[in-house]
């Protein structure tokens, strides 16, 4: 059967990657080679409406999917093809006709004329405007300022995606957010790139206000979050309560990622995060800038208790580099992900800087996708843990320390 996928007209560079990941998750062998960033449409062949629904219902960058009966440059083409299709499946089913006109519109009279053109379908069931069994949909693409459509598909609606959740999870509607909170749409896309599914164990080691764990918990994953800064964790569970996902949050703690306290035999299905990159929050780890100054401090007692063991003790931090942090992240992912488990994280760059994604022999790079902003861009990089014994090449990380400097100098260089 032929289906038409209708994409959201946003994040064009991400759409096909999300769809590929979803096809793999669902185990659907589907040819996506007809895709182009330039069009919001993609025609695909699938075995059933059920498969089409499985393919798109978890997407955040697709709008919906339709089954195609006829298509072409004119209604003559559409009718010629439609007449060759079998409509016995309609039986007594109720139905209605919808129009979706892109860059154009139709008057009521025109719509009635077009619908009458389909009389030969001999539909026996009743017309029902509210919740019909079948919503036939005429999808018409107009050219700019043209009266007649350039292209037409005669279809029936199969399924919407999960895109409406972006509004439900809009940051503005959450009880707890902060300056580092990540927009719901791209947090969801990140989770889909990491192939997160129900009951998966997911970790965000730089979780701040929990944007990724909240998105993963929506997908019914089991989530762990940690951050070096306690302030961002204080309202953490409020969002999980708000979205009725308290049971999915299995651990949230103050932790320096480079001194990790999650038990060593805990295997993750996915790791998703937005590491600190030194602009809104500095990169730091536990330790002191000048160790000499701290020599012997572990022996300082307050009320007979070593100062560093008291509840109010403030742990000194020292600066750390993004490069080191990212190689720690890859090392951690390589050691702790299940085979085929995925790491997806974001990396910011100045607009004109080329990406050099860090590599690890045990991790295959699945995709690197840029999202452009005014003067900078951020890349979503996704890795997959290779099967045991399969090793790829490692490339040492090149310095990206310049980002912070460039950010503050307004990207003038």
């Amino acid at each position, binding site marked *: 059967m032929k289906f038409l996928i209708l994409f959201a007209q946003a994040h064009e560079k991400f759409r096909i990657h999300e769809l590929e990941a979803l096809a793999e998750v669902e185990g659907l062998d589907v040819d996506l080679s007809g895709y182009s960033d330039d069009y919001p449409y993609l025609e695909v062949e699938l075995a059933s409406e059920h498969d089409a629904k499985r393919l798109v219902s978890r997407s955040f960058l697709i709008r919906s999917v339709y089954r195609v009966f006829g298509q072409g440059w004119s209604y003559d083409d559409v009718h010629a093809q439609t007449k060759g299709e079998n409509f016995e499946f309609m039986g007594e089913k109720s139905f209605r006709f919808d129009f979706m006109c892109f860059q154009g519109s139709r008057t009521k009279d025109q719509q009635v004329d077009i619908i009458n053109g389909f009389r030969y379908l001999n539909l026996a069931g009743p017309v029902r405007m509210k919740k019909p069994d079948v919503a036939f949909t005429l999808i018409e693409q107009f050219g700019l300022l043209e009266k007649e459509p350039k292209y037409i598909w005669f279809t029936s609606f199969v399924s919407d995606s999960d895109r409406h959740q972006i509004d439900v999870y809009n940051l503005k509607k959450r009880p707890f957010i902060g300056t580092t909170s990540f927009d719901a749409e791209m947090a969801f896309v990140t989770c889909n790139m990491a192939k997160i599914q129900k009951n998966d164990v997911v970790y965000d080691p730089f979780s701040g206000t929990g944007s990724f764990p909240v998105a993963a918990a929506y997908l019914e994953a089991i989530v762990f979050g940690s951050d070096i800064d306690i302030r961002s964790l204080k309202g953490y569970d409020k969002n999980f309560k708000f979205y009725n996902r308290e049971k999915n949050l299995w*651990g*949230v703690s*103050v*932790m320096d990622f480079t*001194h990790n306290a*999650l038990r060593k035999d805990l295997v993750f299905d996915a790791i998703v995060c937005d590491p600190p990159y030194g602009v809104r929050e500095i990169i730091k780890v536990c330790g002191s800038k000048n160790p000499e100054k701290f020599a012997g401090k572990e022996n300082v007692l307050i009320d007979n208790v070593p100062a560093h*063991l008291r509840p109010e003790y403030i742990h000194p931090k020292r600066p750390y580099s993004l490069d080191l942090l990212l190689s720690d992240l890859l090392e951690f992912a390589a050691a702790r992900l299940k085979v085929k488990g995925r790491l997806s994280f974001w990396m910011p760059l100045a607009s004109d800087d080329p990406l050099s994604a860090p590599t690890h022999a045990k991790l295959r790079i699945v995709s690197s996708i840029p999202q452009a902003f005014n003067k900078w861009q951020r890349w979503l990089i996704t890795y997959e843990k290779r099967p045991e014994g399969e090793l790829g090449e490692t490339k040492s990380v090149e310095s990206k320390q310049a980002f912070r400097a460039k950010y503050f100098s307004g990207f003038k260089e």
Partner: protein
Amino acid sequence: MKFLTTNFVQCAVQSCARSSDAFPLKYSECQLVQKEIDFDPEFIAHMLQKLDWDALVEVAAELGNSSLPPQKPTIEDAQAAENEQLLRDLHSLLLETQIEQGVMTCKNCGHLYHIKNFIPNFLLPPHLA
């Protein structure tokens, strides 16, 4: 911090990484609070698979609950009536029992960590980092 979390955290000190004594941590001076969470038997049955049962029994006993069976129970049908009580008990212990304050001690190196306002803190002082 949910009681459940005790099953997933260990000492953060590097030299304890390979020690079998670094997990589970020892829990003391804990203030427990019950928070109501919706019961989902399938979810709890699935959760069982991810648990280190010995550690669970040990920590539960430290916190005054010695009613857990010594072996991990096997649940084939989460909806079956005979499993309901067990799953409800686990739900109440693992998800609803939360530690507001307390101390976690590593049985290998003796370092201690605090739980404050329901959040455990695993940051290390400079001489251990």
